């Protein structure tokens, strides 16, 4: 009799320890995903702050290209007003593709390419793009770890029981996949 109680007790304690451990593990992973996303936003913001300077430099010479300036401004406003993460991703991707288009346009203006201010801005833009891609990869890697853990058995069952929802990947839109290239 005593033996049975002992065994049942042992089983419950082990299950209890396992549940607490799993819960804390999921909290840690979720927190990691959040902090990595903050890093992504940080770098996206850096780009949003940088591009108006670039636009100012380019505007004087390329007056006839109004549509692309409109697109850039529009994507910026959309990002500022975005509430959810997927809205932010969509706005950032739109922004990225309009920058790409702007850069294609600037190739037609040799005077721009030789401008010192313009090339300085381009170096900064390139650096920012690279930072974004690094942080985006970091974020996606963390999401992968977290989402995989949520789908695994038996940990995932515990995670879903505690109400952990899978996180979304930051997917790059196909047209924005091409990074702007700087040529000297």
């Amino acid at each position, binding site marked *: 009799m005593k*033996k049975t109680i*002992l*065994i049942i007790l*042992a089983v419950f*304690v*082990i299950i209890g*320890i396992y549940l607490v*451990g799993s819960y*804390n*593990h999921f*909290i*840690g992973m979720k*927190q*990691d995903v*959040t*902090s990595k996303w*903050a*890093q992504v936003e*940080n*770098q996206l*913001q*850096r780009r949003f*702050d*940088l591009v108006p*300077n670039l636009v100012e430099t380019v505007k004087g010479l390329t007056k006839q290209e109004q549509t692309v300036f409109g697109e850039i401004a529009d994507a910026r406003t959309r990002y500022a007003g975005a509430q959810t993460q997927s809205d932010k991703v969509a706005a950032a991707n739109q922004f990225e593709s309009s920058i790409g288009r702007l850069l294609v346009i600037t190739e037609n203006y040799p005077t721009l390419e030789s401008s010192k201010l313009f090339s*300085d*801005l381009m*170096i*900064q833009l*390139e*650096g*920012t793009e*690279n*930072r*974004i*891609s*690094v*942080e985006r990869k970091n974020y996606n*890697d963390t999401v*992968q*770890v977290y989402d*995989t853990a949520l*789908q*695994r*058995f*038996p*940990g995932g069952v515990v995670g879903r029981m505690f109400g952990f929802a899978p996180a979304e990947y930051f997917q790059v839109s196909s047209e924005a996949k091409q990074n702007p290239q700087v040529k*000297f």
Partner: protein
Amino acid sequence: MKKCRQILFLVATLFLFVTSTISVKSVYAYKNPGAPTGFADDFAGVIDQDSEQQLESSLTELEQQTGVEFSVVTVKSLGGDTIENFAHSLFQDWGIGAKASNKGLLLLIAIKDHRARFEVGYGLEGTLTDLLTSKIQQQYMIPQFKAGDYTGGIKDAIGQVVGILKGDVSVDTYQTPEVVDQPVYVPVSIWSKITSDFFPFFLYLIFPSLIFFFQLIVYSMARSKSYWMGGALFGGVGLTVTELLFAGFSNADPFSFFKLGTVGLVSVFCTCLGLIIDYRLSKKGVTEKSFAEFIKKGSAQTGGSSIGFLDISDSTFGGDSSSDSFGGFGGGSSGGGGSSSSW
């Protein structure tokens, strides 16, 4: 008696090993060129011996004075990868810069690809902006590289950077009006730090207690006259552990032949093992006194061993410290800051 304790310890160790090795690692097109042997690593063989030694000593001095770990690496080829990805991956692999300050810097030069890059750690992004690193490359490195003088270009560029980091060279000479403020790196939140620090602690806690309960079970097995219970218990444990193993290691089909076969075999093996142990234990019989002694010995042994086991993973964080003066890098990170150039 002794045997069964050893078996229990083996099971616990196996479990610990399994939980500590489960990790997801993504694959890059990048291939690690090797372990760092110093601050200057000339894998491509373009820097002459004397200059490499000079570089090494000036970079060591820089590290001692400012705490900045500046790694200079030449490789023959990037193997089809972009220099940005290669530099970032190498930076992370080696962990250049102290872990807390992230003051690390990497100058990577790919000879055949004609590409070079400064990769700047998080902690130096404010000092060495992308623009600044680009200008240093354009003014002090690329002209020499174009003429085929790799040693000269590397020396000049490093001289500039070292001067800036030590405060000898004024950044103003580059006339770089920064348009954007550098964003501040958001460190990992305290809470996630606590939970990640808590995890090993959790292992310390859970394994001694797990082992304790195993021992309790074994004890009750021994007290009982029946043999079947040990078999059932061990079979159950075997089934659970293999099931967990598969859940941890693969995302494969949960009903694959291989998996079912393995789980079945292990379960049968464990059941037999449990039956034998229970049989032997029940035959011998255990008294209260010998049980207390058994617990005491068992937890002392397992406790000590599991601490030693966990220490192994701690020592892997630092670089390899086998070379005489170079103590390895500190485990710093970069966020893709810096700039690339080509010649």
